[in-house]
């Protein structure tokens, strides 16, 4: 989750409240406050559905409403800049969508620059799917001359990228520049790359990779040009979030004409979205009992414009920077936050229901009782294991296993089909403890893609032998009322003539015997081991 660094002094100035007041209420709009607060700042995690909170400015805006300092819909004035962004058809394939804006009259303090940079990065992550869907460029507009052009250019086209002093071609940037190496895969398979240039063909940006050094934002920068490019209309949402945050800092927003052949749109569009919500539905979902007026007040605290139309409905205006409102329930959640989760009365439901234990769990409980009574200690090994341990070390042929496609290590490349190998691994980890050791596990296995439940037990000590494990197998089956035929086993995990299979109607449901010394050695053990495995259930 995105972590936003909040400087107390900056935050206090933007909110107009003390840090104590802000910090004590902040979690209640949905935030995780880190434990490592410093003297002058604190790191706070916000949720992925609220990219509008990924900046100090956005947080301050929300808190001004929540603390009752400035409730209701924030309004932003957007004046036309007259600047044109000409979009060429060549970008249609590679990165078709662009939105732009100009923000003037900024005074960049350190926290303001840091907040803007962090916001950009968090939006790349949160909305932009690591720049694939959305990438944002911020430029000092005084260095370039409009109109601008957005086009796809051949990889040979060169410019000086940010943080470099010499010109590089776009192809070289993808190979050599850290950002090129980091995000170049987004452009894999394209012959021409997106580029934004000014009237004199100077490069502002090579989205989604890197800006030009030319338009670098410095402390003396007053006026910004912002470009947001991508593959999804969420581009416009990201633009709204950035410009409204800058407006909270005192910036004046100006729109840009995006011209695509004969078609023109104006960005940013900060008009709120109107919806109608039903009071009864809100009360029914949350479990409070509000009037239309009260509901409207709760929403206004969340900076949603709200006006009761009558007793039953409220007209809401959702700010253009909110990316999470899909359905009326999203609005009701905001109402609950505005009301305060800590003010909601927790009430148990009154419907009577009958509980039931799953029969398989009841069975597993019986098994644990029997095994503990026989002196066996329960273990709970991983269900993930490896082909090497599960089959090779056991001298068994591969059969019925579910392999994972991209294992994180070779220790875990499949789901177990049996449990006995895991018990031998546990013995191997516990060789420093006194013998005899007797352990069991009862749990899930996956065979042929289906979840089943097995019991396995094993005993290791100098005189572990067939009669011990045969007695165990018989006892367990007697206690569990399982009647199976016991026949000599071909299982190579056991010594020949010292291993048995358990059959029901000719189906193998288990086995037991003396583990082959090669298996024992394979697991790094040095004492005789006997083992037992039994299928005890399926879903």
């Amino acid at each position, binding site marked *: 989750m995105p972590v936003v660094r909040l400087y107390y002094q900056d935050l206090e100035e933007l909110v107009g409240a003390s840090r104590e007041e802000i910090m004590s209420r902040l979690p*209640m*709009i949905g935030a995780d406050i880190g434990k490592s607060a410093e003297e002058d700042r604190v790191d706070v995690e916000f*949720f*992925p559905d609220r990219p509008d909170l990924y900046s100090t400015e956005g947080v301050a805006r929300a808190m001004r409403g929540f603390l009752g300092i400035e409730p209701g819909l924030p309004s932003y004035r957007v004046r036309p800049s007259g600047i044109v962004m000409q979009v060429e058809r060549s970008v249609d394939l590679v990165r078709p969508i662009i939105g732009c804006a100009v923000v003037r009259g900024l005074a960049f303090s350190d926290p303001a620059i840091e907040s803007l940079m962090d916001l950009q990065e968090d939006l790349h992550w949160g909305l932009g*799917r690591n720049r694939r*869907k959305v990438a944002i460029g911020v430029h000092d507009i005084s260095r370039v001359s409009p109109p601008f052009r957005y086009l796809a250019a051949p990889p040979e086209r060169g410019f000086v990228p940010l943080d470099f002093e010499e010109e590089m071609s776009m192809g070289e940037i993808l190979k050599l520049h850290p950002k090129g190496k980091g995000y170049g895969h987004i452009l894999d398979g394209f012959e021409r790359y997106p580029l934004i240039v000014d009237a004199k063909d100077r490069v502002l940006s090579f989205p989604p990779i890197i800006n030009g050094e030319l338009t670098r934002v410095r402390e003396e920068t007053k006026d910004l040009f912002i470009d947001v490019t991508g593959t*999804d209309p969420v581009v416009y949402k990201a633009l709204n979030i950035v410009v409204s945050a800058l407006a909270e800092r005192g910036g004046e927003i100006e729109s840009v004409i995006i011209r695509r052949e004969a078609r023109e749109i104006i960005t940013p569009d900060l008009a709120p979205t109107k919806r109608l919500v039903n009071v009864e539905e809100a009360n029914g*979902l949350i*479990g*409070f009992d509000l009037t239309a007026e009260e509901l409207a007040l709760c929403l206004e605290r969340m900076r949603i414009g709200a006006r009761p139309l009558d007793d039953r409905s409220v007209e809401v205006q959702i700010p253009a920077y909110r990316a999470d409102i*899909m*359905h*009326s*329930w999203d609005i009701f*959640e905001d109402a*609950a936050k505005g009301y305060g989760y*800590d003010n*909601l*009365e*927790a*009430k*148990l*439901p009154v*419907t009577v*229901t009958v*509980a*039931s234990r*799953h029969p398989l*769990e009841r069975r597993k*409980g019986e098994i644990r009782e029997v*095994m*503990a009574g*026989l*002196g*066996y*200690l*329960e*273990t*709970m*090994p*991983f*269900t*993930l294991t490896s082909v090497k341990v599960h089959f090779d070390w056991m001298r068994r042929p591969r059969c019925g296993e579910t*392999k*994972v496609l*991209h294992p*994180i*290590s070779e220790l875990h490349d499949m*789901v177990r089909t049996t449990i006995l190998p895991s018990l031998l691994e*546990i013995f191997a*980890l*516990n060789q420093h*403890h006194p013998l005899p*050791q*007797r352990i069991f596990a009862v749990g*899930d296995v996956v065979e042929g*893609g*289906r*979840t089943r439940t097995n019991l396995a037990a094993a005993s290791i000590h100098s005189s572990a032998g067939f009669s011990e494990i045969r007695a165990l197998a018989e006892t367990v089956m007697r206690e569990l009322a399982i009647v199976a035929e016991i026949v000599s086993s071909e299982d190579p995990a056991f010594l020949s003539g010292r291993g048995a299979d358990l059959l029901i109607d000719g189906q193998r449901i288990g086995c037991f015997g003396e583990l082959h010394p090669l298996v024992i050695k394979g697991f790094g053990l040095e004492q005789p081991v006997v083992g037992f495995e039994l299928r005890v259930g399926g*879903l």
Partner: protein
Amino acid sequence: MLSESEAKVLRAISIGHLDPKEIADLTGMKIEAVRSTADSLSENGFIHVEKTVEEAFSLTPEGELYAREGLPERRILEVIGEGMPISDLKDPSLKIGLGWLKRKGWASIERGMIVPATEAERGEDERALSMLLEGPIESSHLPKEGLLLLKGRGLVTSVTSKSWLYRATDAGRKEGSSAGITAETLTHITPELIKAGQWVGNLVSYGERTYQVRPYDVTLKAEPIFPGKRHPYQRMLDRMREIMLEMGFAEIKGEIVQSSFWNFDALFQPQDHPAREMQDTFYLDGKADIPDYSSIKSMHESGGEIGSTGWGGSWSPDVARREVLRTHTTAVTIKYLAEHTDPPVKAFSIDRAYRREAIDATHLPEFEQLEGVIMDEGATFANLLGVLKEFYSKMGFSEVRFRPGYFPYTEPSVEPEVYIDGLGWVELGGAGVFRREVTAPFGIEHPVLAWGLGVGRLAMLRLGLKDLRLLYQSDMGWLRETPLSTGI
């Protein structure tokens, strides 16, 4: 040279029998004979005799009557009320109290009337009386003044108790051992000794010989032994299962291998969501069968018919068919709800889920998850908070608070926090109401309250573990030595 009886008594005393009655039982001598033998042993300096005499008092029959019913002067007071002519006091057993009544100043007699004084405090004599009702009491334990009064009125009588205590002196022990009269020590008790031995206390005579059972130092430690038992973590899981059952939930289970459809799409997880990427999820080679997906497709693309915007873009059934190891048990829950759309449903599961995480002390690729859902007509978010409070309180967390949260398939969402001594407020699990985008495609028309909990974190807290791996790759010493009582 000791006489036969002296030898017997000295033997008994030197092996620890100090009381004449006990010695008489052991030797078969009369108690008087034991006492006189002991006196002669004492004269020879072989034993030391401690004789205790203590005066005690018990109630006379009259005293016992008064102890039960009250002293006559006390009873007169009860009869006369505000005042009564003396002539009306006919009962002779009461009349004898008149003198005491006046002497104690509890009443006066004025012109033939008995007039009670304002107060008649319970006296020490009355206190002593009621104490003595329990049986004889040594004089030193009775209130002195009270005892004097009772003695004067003949309500108590003195009884004297005497006791003797013998101890062998050094000379006695020496004399005893030179006369060869100490018992042989015995370590193991045989069936033969149980059947045919003559046992008195720790001594047994068998044939011609007498043995004493060797006393052990009972404070010495034994070699530890350990029972077979359930895993400490399993005990915790079982307790949680029990709690869910106590709260009226039915347990459900499902497959570990799931289609992306049930694991993600059915829960309105967009197909380009980061959690679906390869680095977080264990994908399998297989393609699963998926149910009719038209309603899911339209929900994802355009919000179906519930007034939602949906995610936009285009939804692909091929992506939904990809098999995964379930990343949460919610995959099982939503499938169950899709198959049980009639309210009420209260279901839970405690099972393993899988995430593609590199193993370290606090991250594992598989872990237990507890999950509960309630689907019911009129169920509210406030009900969810009520259920959570109850659940956590049963888990031993009396203080619970709620903070807004975010989960992709719930709205509203909440993060419960519990207060733990020494740690403060700790986030424990997540909860919320299933989004309409999740429930509507399956025809689930009532709110679904849901919450879930990664159990491993709680286990670390409760079992005092620093490393989650210990739960699964257990140290036998830890398993053996962790007592049953540890955990919830």
